[in-house]
């Protein structure tokens, strides 16, 4: 088991995930004591999906050095693709049921018209746009979950890397991409219900009789499983020769190119692969969230993604998982209105008002004082220290931390 040797954190992670999954299951309302409410199980399931996309972000940023500020666009697209089928199938059942009482059985085109009216009546139209062509087919939409974001990433990445757009420019370019996509989806004419997006996704077609208590746990399991797979894939990628090359690209792109590697090819592969991973995360996330709309892929979402990875610790896969889990759970706690106010006598700190200030300042503090993020704490335990460089920058490229240096 080569992979375990190169990734000492892997067995720990697998064990922790398994324990966590079991614990949640036994505390859930559906299969256990009910100590965890269904809404919290959903939150945990969603958090696992966020951890999944954070791993993708870590691969592309922490390991390859491409700070993409657009990966949430792929996440959202994945959600949209699965959402189209969920909406179509659910509405189809409703429509067929309500038409069953009609004196004359409906024709297929009448059924599809009625589904269109139901889905788009909310936003003031009734015809199916072209992009809903495959919405009736589960397998086609599942394929599109992978294909649409994959092809978008492939084309975008090919254009960008071919022109040698790097660094900050690439960040801004990816940000522009996600902004353009969200603005496009905001338009009603885009055919995906504009600002309303796709909603009611938690109601699985034909599963009306099954309680959300159960469904939430199933999705939780699926998310945990997907996270495990992603972790394994990520661990596999970064531990081999491929991993060395992408880390090389991160540390000094030009040198890797001079060594004869096709830097663009490697970048494109990682970019596209992580886009697909993000899309799968989105396809699991949004049925738990219940609604997807263009605001989900606004540029700020992708910046948050980068922040999770930074807080968790870049360049280590478990760091991404910890960052995503930590920030999103703490966010839930503080916005829940349950955090007690702090009375300073002259002023009462309400967390609802001050939480974002705290979060913002913690980004600053983590960046300044703990560039290795929460994951850096494990280094303290395992006594992996950065060498003291007496104020000189680390590594050949700015800010990079080479493995052997970190080993002391």
């Amino acid at each position, binding site marked *: 088991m080569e992979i375990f040797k190169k990734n000492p954190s892997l067995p720990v992670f697998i064990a922790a995930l398994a324990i966590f999954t079991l614990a949640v299951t036994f505390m859930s309302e559906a299969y256990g004591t009910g*100590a965890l409410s269904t*809404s919290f199980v959903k939150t945990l399931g969603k958090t696992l999906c966020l951890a999944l996309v954070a791993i993708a972000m870590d691969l592309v940023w922490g390991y390859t050095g491409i700070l993409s500020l657009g990966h949430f666009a792929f996440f959202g697209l994945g959600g949209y693709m699965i959402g189209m089928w969920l909406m179509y199938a659910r509405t189809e059942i409703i429509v067929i049921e309500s038409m069953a009482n009609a004196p004359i059985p409906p024709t297929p085109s009448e059924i599809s018209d009625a589904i269109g009216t139901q889905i788009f009546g909310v936003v003031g139209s009734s015809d199916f746009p072209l992009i809903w062509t495959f919405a009736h087919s589960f397998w086609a939409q599942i394929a599109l979950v992978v294909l649409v974001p994959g092809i978008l990433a492939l084309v975008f990445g090919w254009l960008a890397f071919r022109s040698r757009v790097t660094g900050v420019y690439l960040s801004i370019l990816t940000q522009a991409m996600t902004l353009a996509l969200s603005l496009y989806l905001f338009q009603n004419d885009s055919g995906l219900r504009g*600002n309303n997006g796709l909603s009611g996704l938690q109601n699985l077609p034909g599963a009306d009789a099954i309680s959300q208590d159960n469904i939430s746990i199933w999705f939780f399991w699926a998310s945990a499983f997907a996270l495990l797979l992603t972790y394994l894939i990520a661990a596999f990628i970064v531990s081999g020769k491929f991993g060395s090359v992408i880390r090389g690209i991160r540390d000094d792109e030009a040198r890797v190119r001079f060594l004869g590697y096709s830097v663009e090819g490697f970048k494109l592969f990682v970019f596209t692969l992580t886009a697909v991973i993000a899309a799968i995360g989105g396809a699991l996330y949004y049925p738990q969230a219940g*609604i997807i*709309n263009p605001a989900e892929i606004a540029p700020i979402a992708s910046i948050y993604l980068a922040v999770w990875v930074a807080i968790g610790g870049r360049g280590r896969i478990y760091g991404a998982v910890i960052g995503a889990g930590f920030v999103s759970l703490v966010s839930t706690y503080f916005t829940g209105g349950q955090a007690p106010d702090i009375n300073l006598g002259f002023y009462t700190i309400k967390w609802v008002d001050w939480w974002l200030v705290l979060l913002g300042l913690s980004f600053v503090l983590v960046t300044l004082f703990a560039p290795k993020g929460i994951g850096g704490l494990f280094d303290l335990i395992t006594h992996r220290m950065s060498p003291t460089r007496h104020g000189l920058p680390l590594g050949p490229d700015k800010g990079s931390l080479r493995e052997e240096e970190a080993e002391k």
Partner: protein
Amino acid sequence: MEVKTQLKATLASALFASTAIASGAMAADCPVKVGVLHSLSGTMAISETTLKDTMLMLVEQQNAKGGVLGCEIEAVVVDPASDWPLFAEKARELLTVHDVDVMFGNWTSVSRKSVLPVIEELNGLLFYPVQYEGEESSKNVFYTGAAPNQQAIPATDYFLDELGVEKFALLGTDYVYPRTTNNILEAYLKDKGIAEEDIFVNYTPFGHSDWSKIVADVVALGADGKKVGVISTINGDANIGFYKELAAAGVSADDIPVVAFSVGEEELSGLDTSNLVGHLAAWNYFMSADTEENASFIEAWHAFIGDDARVTNDPMEAHYIGFNMWVNAVEAAGSTDVDAVRAEMYGQEFPNLTGGTAIMNVNHHLSKPVLIGEILEDGQFDIISQTEEVPGDAWTDYLPESAVLVSDWKDLGCGMYNTETETCVQLKSNY
């Protein structure tokens, strides 16, 4: 090994936080819990924070009167942070973890659509206080804001009859409320004999600020000698830039009147209205309404918020009516059980702040008067027209697909009943 313990500790602390939340779920009959589901951060905080404060004030007032059913009312405030999926999550949390008896909340349509499946699944109760596009009637929602026929249609009639407008510019922010409202209005105007080329439609993004070209386009509409009027469903902050540009272009209300459906006292407090005098807004409530109830409501609001400069607005009145109706229905039902309260809500009456009485209809919409006001220099509205109570219509009569639908939860037990085929299309609502 150390790594493992550390990791476990982190996870355990996360779990601890969660169980701490969950264990607060023990629900007794007292106090009666009222969930407040308004965004306190993010883009919608601008509008929704005021409504949260309104709810806290109403709860405080009711408690001073002895609460309800002899219980104290406790407001549970959560912050969905203008994040639509979070609305669904917080609604579930309110219903299952905090076991609230009723929720007051939401502003945007998309947040309502996000919450709908959850409250229908868990049989919750939501009071929705904002004017909206209609085309919906959920068993678990009471719509205390205006449906299109309580705001848009009367305002359009006013344009047609009173101002003699022959050409319409429908300007809106690109989201579902303006889209649907404009669809309904287009159909309505065509019904009234306005030709298609005399209806100009434009959609702008949220928070749009560069209005020069659109205002110029509207002015240019007057080139064929017809009187032009603007029906604005522009949302929130974008109005400020729009009105500033309108004023700069010297568009007077006598030449091109603008009637807005989303501009109230709160929005006007963000700009100088001296150049906007005479433009219009249609609501079910204006702060300038001259009644005793309104005077005491404003006084209470100023005392509660501690700022005499704060204005009141239409959704606040909607919460005022909704909350009081709910209290009365609970007293009548003798319990906070959702189905019992719902049955008592039908026909529930409560005096409006603008005079007259609001009545809750079986389609979960209120009968309320429609007011049209002209903007004054001080940012208030001069009420120049007030109709009788108009019953809110869940399904508009002006779109062919909706004209055949009615909602009657009391007798038909269906919110989407097709009168042609005489069947219930669906019991849940369309989201």
